[in-house]
């Protein structure tokens, strides 16, 4: 009896503790429900209703060569942009981890300033740089390296340059965060036990930074799949990505059912990629332990 009496107040406080997080989550949950889930349901309904309540709109997405081509272009551009962003961001993030004080602050500012500039503005600036009469072509002509001009703009090259530039700050910050969690005394331990700077990096720092690299890769790739402004302004029709096609369906062809179907398929595909990726690159496996 006394034992039960003693436990009662504790059980109550446990209930309180469980109720608290739910309460804190509520505002965000309401927001997501109203502005994300509800539109999603409406989209779903519309995609089915457009073709007299059938999956025809979805079938069109799967069967049309246009969608297949656009989807492949999207995957290709997103993959290449992700790899390039990681390759460029890694040395920068590493530099940030080995600097400190004012220098680190300054470098971080340099990373963030472009991040604060609007995507459209940043993309337009590439028009100015890469165009036939843009800075690069003019310079090359003045130096006599080319006659006429290089077809830089409206190409896959231009789209990738634009995408990578937009993705870089985020990639750097995510990698930097992951690298900061690596214990620096591990590097000291490697060095005192015979590893040169390069060997310490190769055998200790780099493997320990991989979970961060994989995490950043997923984030950047998923973000790349939805790019719209950059391929629209810097690419040719051949570089059309899925978000542009959906936009054309919705705003020019006014086929909202078709646009909804394509949009939902993009969402499903992205979620699947993320889920599969997470399964194969789970942090547990990388750390060789159970509680990474």
């Amino acid at each position, binding site marked *: 009896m006394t034992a039960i009496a003693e436990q009662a107040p504790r059980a109550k406080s446990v209930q309180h503790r469980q109720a608290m997080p739910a309460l804190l989550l509520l505002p965000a949950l309401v927001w997501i429900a109203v502005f994300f889930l509800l539109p999603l349901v409406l989209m779903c309904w519309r995609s089915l209703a457009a073709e007299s309540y059938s999956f025809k709109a979805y079938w069109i997405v799967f069967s049309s060569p246009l969608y297949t081509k656009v989807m492949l272009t999207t995957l290709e551009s997103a993959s290449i942009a992700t790899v390039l962003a990681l390759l460029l961001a890694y040395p920068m993030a590493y530099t940030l981890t080995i600097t400190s004080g004012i220098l680190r602050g300054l470098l971080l500012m340099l990373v963030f300033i472009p991040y604060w500039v609007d995507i459209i503005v940043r993309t337009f600036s590439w028009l100015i740089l890469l165009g036939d009469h843009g800075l690069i072509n003019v310079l090359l002509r003045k130096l006599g390296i080319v006659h006429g001009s290089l077809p830089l703009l409206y190409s896959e090259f231009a789209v990738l340059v634009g995408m990578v530039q937009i993705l870089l700050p985020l990639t750097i910050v995510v990698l930097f965060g992951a690298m900061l969690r690596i214990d620096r005394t591990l590097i000291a*331990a490697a*060095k005192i036990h015979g590893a040169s700077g390069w060997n310490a990096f190769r055998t200790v720092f780099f493997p320990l930074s991989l979970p961060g690299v994989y995490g950043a890769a997923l984030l950047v790739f998923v973000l790349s799949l939805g790019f719209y402004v950059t391929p629209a302004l810097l690419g040719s029709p051949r570089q059309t990505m899925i978000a542009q096609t959906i936009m054309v369906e919705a705003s020019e062809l006014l086929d909202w059912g078709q646009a909804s179907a394509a949009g939902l398929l993009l969402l499903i595909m992205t979620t699947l990629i993320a889920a599969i990726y997470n399964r194969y690159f789970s942090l547990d496996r990388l750390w060789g332990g159970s509680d990474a």
Partner: protein
Amino acid sequence: MDRSADTASGAQVRLRNLCKTYGQTAAVDDVSLDVPAGAFVSLLGPSGSGKTTTLNLIAGFLTPDRGDILIDNRSVADVPPHKRNIGMVFQSYSLFPHMTVAENVGFPLRMRSKLTRADAQKRIAEMLALVQLSHLSARYPRQLSGGQQQRVAMARALVSRPRLLLMDEPLGALDKKLREQMQTEIRRIHRSVGTTVVYVTHDQSEALTMSDLIVVMHRARIAQIGPPNALYETPASAFVADFIGDSNLIEATIMGVVGDRWTVKAGNGALIHTAPPAFAASVGDRVFLLIRPEDMTVRPSTSEPQASREQGEHIVGVLKERSFHGDVFKLGVALGSEMLKARVAREDGAAFEVGQSIALTWKNGAARLLPATGDDDGSGRSAAT
């Protein structure tokens, strides 16, 4: 254990006037030290005394502002850490989390020795046997307890048979019982490999039990160097006396000298005779009188709590505290504003009541004079830290 000739002895380490400053603060100030080959030397001091900085200078993680480090009579000023052939055990163990125990232990071999794969495997197995972890070679560090990680760190530090092993508070994260067990373990391993060990700790009892030689550091400088018993018995300053072991430091003034017999007056007026001080002093100087609590013996005093010239080496005070510690009683005896500590046998301690007047005596030669200025002598610049 097979010991090839090249590892039979440890390295000789010499620090020559080492200085390292951070901004205005001297972290290591003119430190000179000879570490004999094969010795177990502890750098002992409170936090911020410069012991870890000294260790990092030897390792090569820091570059001295001035001074030189000689390992086996060769300056290592231009030798990067990975070429110094040193093993090191870090406070946080710093095992590589993505490598198994065997891979961690094999790391130094992979980096610096030209051993064949089979020989390397044999050496790793040998080291794991030495630290008694052979059965855990396939585990990852996070699957081990603190004590086990500590042993892996030892094995990794010693696997390439370095002539010098640095240890930075390696037992700080372990609980008391495990710590004492590891102290014995580390001594056993040290004896079996013969490597020179430089061991950093802030734990005086750890330093006393493990070391051949203790270097007491205080405010970026060396306060005293000596074997454990010498430091305990003949501390050179009030700081060392206070830091190593339990001590009574009584403020006193030198009153007179008759031959080898010096007479000092304690704060409360008691006159006490001692042997000559080991430092230059003259009548009228302020000094500290050191008497270890275990050197005190007690007897009842009928007189009032005051000095008694006729009885020679003794002080009369009032018993204020008495606590039982199994084998001994610890007594707190008030002498004016000062509280003196005494550690006495069970039956002696039981005979007194708190509040009683009590006479403290001590063995001949147990009272030592120490300079009142102690290690602050001429080190005004480091006093600011």
